[in-house]
């Protein structure tokens, strides 16, 4: 069975601090895909990134970066120089081919204070 664990329930930081959101996943499949979604107060989930299990290269997009490590089954997300607009709930998710569904973690609520 597949499982995603986000141990951090809530994180509070002050603007301009860097923050890392942890994600640990479990699957016996060798081919799988990992995602991060952002859920602002409006409620609509916004796609941030997708990685496949064969691509362990870290990725950077502006202030966002992702660290994928198969050895520890982790896919962590770092926001550099956080801003108030980053305040949201962030979800890590996993899917494997031919199952169609996303398996979500319980989310991490990030609050960025000015």
């Amino acid at each position: 069975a597949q499982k995603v664990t986000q141990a951090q329930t809530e994180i509070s930081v002050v603007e301009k601090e860097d923050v890392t959101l942890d994600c640990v996943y479990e699957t016996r499949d060798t081919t799988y895909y990992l995602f991060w979604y952002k859920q602002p107060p409006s409620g609509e989930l916004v796609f941030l990134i997708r990685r496949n299990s064969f691509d362990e290269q870290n990725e950077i997009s502006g202030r966002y970066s992702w660290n994928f490590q198969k050895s520890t089954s982790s896919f962590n997300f770092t926001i550099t120089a956080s801003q108030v607009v980053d305040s949201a709930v962030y979800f890590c998710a996993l899917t494997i081919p031919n199952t169609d569904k996303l398996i979500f973690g319980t989310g991490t609520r990030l609050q960025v204070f000015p």
Partner: protein
Amino acid sequence: GAGVSQSPRYKVAKRGQDVALRCDPISGHVSLFWYQQALGQGPEFLTYFQNEAQLDKSGLPSDRFFAERPEGSVSTLKIQRTQQEDSAVYLCASSLDQRGWDEQFFGPGTRLTVL
């Protein structure tokens, strides 16, 4: 372009009532998903359509839940004889292709409260 839309945004039902939740996916998207999100939790998969075919309904919690997508576009999630434990946000998502790893575009959700 228009994103995924859902209606109503909020629904209050008395226990035992039937409800119908609507999802309008992005035009041309083949795949459509329904998820249930309880307060403080991550979304949980309910069911999946590829065009009009319901290929996976393993996440539906009981036979009171029924989903359809008769013309391969708009979808309706129906809950019969609602119970308090059905209170949640129901999210709809669509993706362009039928591959499970495609980006899913989510609607704003319908918040269902059962009294």
